[in-house]
């Protein structure tokens, strides 16, 4: 499957991103950046699946976009500011209600510094 994809796209591609094949180390690095604990099976699965997906999206490299501005929002550019009037927010009790661990109106977490 992967080999087929490689051949399929080869002819059209500019060489910014070559046909993608992630290494296991790269998968582990991404998981670490995303703060995701993965099992060995998951790592192997994502290594293959993400490589296939990256292969598919590589077709975007076919397009010359040197003069095209990026779109980060479809809305017209504008600044949204409201009047700076204080308003009631959630009560501490409500805001803390969904936390797994709390103490004296605060979220409780494991020690940040030793």
């Amino acid at each position, binding site marked *: 499957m992967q080999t087929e994809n490689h051949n399929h796209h080869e002819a059209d591609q500019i060489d910014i991103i070559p046909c993608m094949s992630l290494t296991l180390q790269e998968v582990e690095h991404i998981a670490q950046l995303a*703060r*995701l604990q993965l099992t060995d099976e998951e790592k192997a699965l994502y290594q293959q699946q993400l490589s296939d*997906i990256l292969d598919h999206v590589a*077709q975007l490299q076919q397009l010359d976009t040197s003069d*095209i501005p990026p779109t*980060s929002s*479809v*809305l017209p550019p504008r600044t949204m500011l409201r009047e700076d009037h204080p308003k009631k927010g959630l009560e501490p009790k409500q805001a803390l*209600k969904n936390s797994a661990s709390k103490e004296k109106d605060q979220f409780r977490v*494991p020690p940040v510094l030793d």
Partner: protein
Amino acid sequence: MSLSSPFTVKDSLTLLSIGDLSSLELTDHFLSKIEENESAIHAFITPTPELARRMAKQADQKRAQLKKNDETIPPLLGLPMAIKDVLCVEGIRATCGSKILEDFVPPFNATAVQKLLDAGIVVLGKTNTDEFAMGSSTENSAYGVTHNPWDIDRVPGGSSGGSAAAVAAKFAPAALGTDTGGSVRQPASFCGVSGLKPTYGRVSRYGLIAYGSSLDSLGVLAGNVEDVETIFRLMAGFDEKDATSIDKPVPKQGCAEDVSIKGLRIGVPEEYFITGMQPAVERKVREAISVFESLGAEIEVTSLPHTQYALPVYYLIAPAEASANLARYDGVRFGLRATNEDLISMFTQSRGFGFGPEVKRRIMLGTYALSAGYYEAYYGQAQKVRTLIKQDFEKAFERVDAIAAPVAPTTAFRIGGHGDDPLAMYLEDVFTLPANLAGVPGLAFPVGFDQEQLPIGMQLMGNHFDERTLFRLAHAYQQSTDWHLQFPLV
């Protein structure tokens, strides 16, 4: 009292207002449908029958009180509705179809939900969804698969599959859904109901638990487009709690008051009729287009030349935004906390245990696309191609009032049919993604069946903030066809 007919919003509201039916009777009617068939369909993650009865009784009391004082009755007073479980309803848990939010009970209402509660709705429950709305089949839910009421071996589509199945199974006259890449329109199509993805910014996203913030929109599913419009108009409008909501007046006039579609121009983009699509889908969509022509619309061929790039653009931008949005699930303020061992383990284990496979896949993909060294080549390039896709629509709408296309290349596929092949699943979204990338509205509605009696849907896409033209066209179509009146025998 005639309980055989009121499964539409319009019928229900008529019966409520003339006093032929109380909200409690109407609510009990839908609750009994749910009780009868929910075990086969599984449309809900959290049904709320007691709350619904309580709200219905209050609605009846309120109606009596207001009538007595000759005061205005809220437009949806006593109307039962289902709500997709990615929307916050105060006091009812909102799981997003994820284990990580299993016990999350929002302390506030989404703005759209608040507006509908103010209009008088009764909440029947929270409907099933792919985890964090990531999926096209509702198979990615941590709370089980929803079954298509037309064939329970098939998926209802996704991610708003629970809402679509609920409407098709007559569990609710209308349901809220969300659409980031087709998640209202595709399940509407698979279940033979009508569904709107509004213009980006038209309906507040406040209280919609975020997936892809530049793409997310909050829509409605119902048995016909007039019902969809009734609900949509009540939830649209500016909200100061959502900086991306737009202050544009919502048209006062509904589609039913403007029946002629003579002279409206409909573009048919050839890029949406691809080899490999199910022949019955193309045939029925083209038949529907000729119905529009016979009703006086002008049909012309149009082109959206960058359509084929919508899939790769979407599957970079949406996961990138998701990877940032879902960083908030760290076990601290809400959601599952797997361990208190140390800070990093709390993050990685809570997320590793709490998220399902598709969510992890998209977080990984998005993290990679945004990471140093790859940002420009992936995310940056996708944003630029997004501009080209948006420009395709701008050019098309210089000539036409609406664009007609299939919703999905196939009818509902079998549960488990795409196995473990994420790319095959992503291809289901190929016709719905462009509207989200361009921010334009899309309205899906049924136009026939395939050989296996599975519904086929088409969509009309419109210019920014021109939902009205879509409703006019689709309403005219539904006035002269009866596909929307056909429901499965559950």
